[in-house]
């Protein structure tokens, strides 16, 4: 932890960065994002096993961007977000100073996107066995059971859009949900409005989701939203050979094709 604080202090002192996005102590047993702009603030940085959430979403937040040149403590999910965002022209190489804490608590700094790509090739990017088991459980249901299952989940949704706000890939200035000519997605959080919203969101994240799980973590109503996009990761990988957030110049799986893409349902 000291190494991290020292490093960030140095970065701030020599003006390499103007602000550093890292973790700090939160309420009771929580950790939260902090934005160190001074040496004093940097001294509050922590890195504990609880520091697991993906900070990369802040890189595109208007007011955070305005702090100046940013540094960030990135975990694997955040690195993948950065790669995906780069492939969508939202972050440029060299724009952000990126630090990573290794298992032995030493720090790695990534000088460029290429080094992140090389690192990610060896990183564990799979969804957890628990998440996998939950997906399999749903897949084992009958169609109508699945409908019932999701209907019950979506019923809880209050359309607070915490999932959207927490997702690093939901950076659109004007979400389709907010488009009203035509009103594709009903604003109301009734069954239809919720189903439409979550299907739309899952589809828009298909091939872009980097499985950080922030959507589900953010949901105050405990809806397992992450499963919607997670279950698309495998088909996109095996079908199209694409995995999101691995390369800064990747072509999006759904904006390309192979003439021999396999399907078994078109007659």
């Amino acid at each position, binding site marked *: 932890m000291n190494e991290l604080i020292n490093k960030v202090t140095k970065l701030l002192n020599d003006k390499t960065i103007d602000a550093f996005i890292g973790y700090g102590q939160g*309420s009771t047993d929580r950790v939260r994002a902090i934005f160190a702009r001074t040496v004093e603030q940097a001294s509050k940085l922590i890195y504990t096993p609880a520091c697991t959430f993906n900070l990369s979403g802040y890189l595109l937040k208007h007011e955070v961007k305005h702090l100046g040149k940013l540094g960030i403590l990135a975990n694997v999910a955040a690195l993948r977000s950065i790669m995906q965002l780069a492939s969508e022209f939202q972050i440029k190489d060299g724009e952000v100073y990126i630090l990573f804490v290794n298992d032995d608590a030493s720090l790695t700094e990534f000088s460029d996107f290429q080094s992140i790509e090389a690192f990610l090739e060896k990183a564990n990017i799979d969804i957890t066995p628990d998440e996998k088991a939950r997906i399999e459980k749903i897949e084992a249901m009958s169609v109508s059971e699945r409908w019932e299952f999701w209907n019950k989940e979506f019923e809880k949704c209050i359309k607070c859009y915490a999932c959207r706000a927490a997702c690093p890939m939901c950076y659109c200035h004007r979400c389709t949900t907010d488009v009203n000519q035509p009103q594709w997605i009903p604003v109301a*959080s009734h069954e239809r409005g919720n189903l439409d919203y979550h299907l739309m969101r899952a589809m828009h994240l298909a091939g872009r989701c980097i499985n950080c799980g922030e959507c589900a973590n953010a949901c105050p109503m405990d809806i397992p939203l992450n499963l919607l996009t997670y279950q698309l990761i495998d088909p996109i990988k095996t079908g199209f050979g694409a995995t999101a957030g691995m390369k800064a110049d990747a072509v999006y799986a759904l904006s390309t094709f192979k003439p021999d893409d396999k399907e078994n349902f078109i007659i």
Partner: protein
Amino acid sequence: MDKELKILKYSDLSKLIERFRSKGFPVLAPVQKGKVIEIEPVDTLDTIALDVLLSTQSAKKAAFPKVEKVLEYTLEKAAVKQTAIDPNAYAETILFGVRPCDASGFKSLDAIFGEAPSDAFYLNKKEKTTIISFSCPTADDYCFCTSVGGGPGYTAGSDIQFTAISKDELLVEILTEKGKKLSGLFNDLLTDASPSIDKEKFLADVKVVFDLDKVISNTTAAFNSAELWLDQSLRCIGCGACAFVCPTCACFDFQDEQNTKKGVRLRLWDSCGFSLFTLHTSGHNPREVQSQRWRQRIMHKFSYMPEQLKVLGCEGCGRCSRACPVDMNIKEHLTSIALQ
């Protein structure tokens, strides 16, 4: 009216629910659903989660649902034909097992919706709702009711309040005429309580953490302290979780849903945390950045409401902090404002 004190055997509690239901009253109560606790219609006591700290969402939806139909219309060749929804078409309802902060939250809503022109949809529902709250034997770090004038045994807003005074007995405080009327359904189960029972003994200990007057005066003065709001809200991601779980947030939006023939007008919850909340058609947004929206949230609750409606916009339930995906802790923020 003067409050009446009674005793109810815990074992008779289930009869209450049975009697309410047999009279046809819908009963809304907290129900545990996975990790969340929802306020939902129930038929029996055993489905009610009475020993939980708080429901995930507040009880406001009993009178201010997340989706509410206010108008129907048909599109005819020459004109639009409207059919109003009768705001009185709402059954007498019992809101059961909520916490004192939930009940007192309705005070703020009453003030907001009662202001002229008054809101018949809310007021009628509220009028027809009898609130039976349960005082709090426990609290957590997010609770700060005592700092905003409430408390674990606060009775304002409740029609009847129950307090567990032993494993077998509940202290029943009948607080309003509405409560009195409802208690007629279970008078036979009540016995008189000794006025000497010290209710406080059975309540959670919630420390006062800030000086409310300071918060109010400092908030009002801090309108232009951009740095303060930015500092507090840099991690805010602009979702509406805080507003939607809040017992006093009352902002709403109207949306029409229609096909080519007919449609409905719906009232839906809205949140000042959303960037589109104040967006003008021109493209101008008077609250351009999140810190300004955060300021609005605090100012509204601790400056504008006390000033204009003579009621505070916060009950200290701490739901917003618990629900916040990025750990925006209102207790902490208010404390720091008080210390400015």
